């Protein structure tokens, strides 16, 4: 497993621009939650824009869509940060800041250790997931694959 890292992209359509009062709850969480990610066990890398703090200025899908792209040493590392840390409260409240999307908005895929995915690569994985459903090349938390292409047992994360 150490020769593979797990890449993760999620996208979100903002209900309100980030400089509005409605988005303040999300914006004030950016710095502490990004710091939490940076210091989490198994964190490898996350995309940042030219300002260097976060990726909120990178808007490949249009002005109201922000993206989050990161790489982790293992599925468990990504899982523990995403769902077993203070980050969970922000996911729980996501509807306050983001509109609901019928399409998948999070995609996971394995990359060779040391490879940092480009935004284009990440978007193509999300497109693949949306078009063909979960597969070893583009999958989800709930329906995921091991680096060798085997379907991971459900419930193998805690």
């Amino acid at each position, binding site marked *: 497993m150490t020769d593979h890292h797990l890449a993760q992209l999620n996208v979100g359509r903002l209900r309100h621009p980030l400089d509005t009062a409605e988005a303040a709850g999300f914006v004030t969480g950016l710095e502490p939650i990004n710091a939490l990610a940076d210091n989490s066990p198994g964190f490898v890398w996350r995309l940042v824009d030219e300002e260097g703090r976060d990726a909120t200025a990178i808007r490949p899908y249009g002005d109201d869509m922000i993206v989050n792209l990161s790489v982790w040493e293992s599925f468990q590392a990504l899982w*523990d940060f*995403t*769902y*077993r*840390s*203070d980050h*969970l*409260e922000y*996911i*729980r409240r*996501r*509807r306050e800041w983001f509109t*609901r999307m*019928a399409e998948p908005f999070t995609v996971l895929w394995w990359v060779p250790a040391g490879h940092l995915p480009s935004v284009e690569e990440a978007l193509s994985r999300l497109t693949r997931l949306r078009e063909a459903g979960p597969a070893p090349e583009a999958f989800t938390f*709930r329906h995921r694959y091991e680096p060798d292409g085997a379907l991971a047992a*459900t*419930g193998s*994360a*805690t």
Partner: protein
Amino acid sequence: MSDVEAITALGDPVRRRVYDYVVAQDHEVGRAEAADAAGIQRTLAAFHLDRLADAGLLDVVFRRPPGRSGPGAGRPAKLYRRSAVDHVVSLPPRDYGTPAALLAEVVESLGAEGDLERVARRHGRTAGESAEGGVEEVLARQGYEPYRADGAAGVVRMRNCPFHAVAREFPPLVCGMNLALVEGLLEGMGETELRARMRARPGECCVEITSKNNDD
């Protein structure tokens, strides 16, 4: 003795016959009557009756038969009646995890998390109103395994997630529901000085309970 062991005690057909007879009567039954009903010797009937009592399926009482009292009535007879305790065993095993996962997926696809949280809060409040004992006691009874977090005065954390199987598949949905349940429980118990908040950590419940004036 467990419910399963209690039910297992009925596996012997003769003992089952004795049991069926006793629980069908409107009076307490002695060994002679049970032996006649089951067509067996009195000593064998007594053996089965005592085994059923040991298993918690029958209660034992000592009483003189009606009409015999006072000196010369002899010692009280050992009588048996249906146990006051219920034994519930569900066979074949029931699967509540699959419907829970399907329902969770529907709630998520509808974006109805807010409705789930409202229902959960109401459910928690109702449970809290009739709950007896302190908060930790009540949480323990619900399977949360609460404990006092070291180094954090007044913070109660929980080692076990009672909804683990479905929470693992739908973390934000089920953890949000759980937070609302615990918030409702505190409300229902009138614990106005306490608040529940989301503090997910690996291997534990996503919620912790803290004093309202503790704002760290």
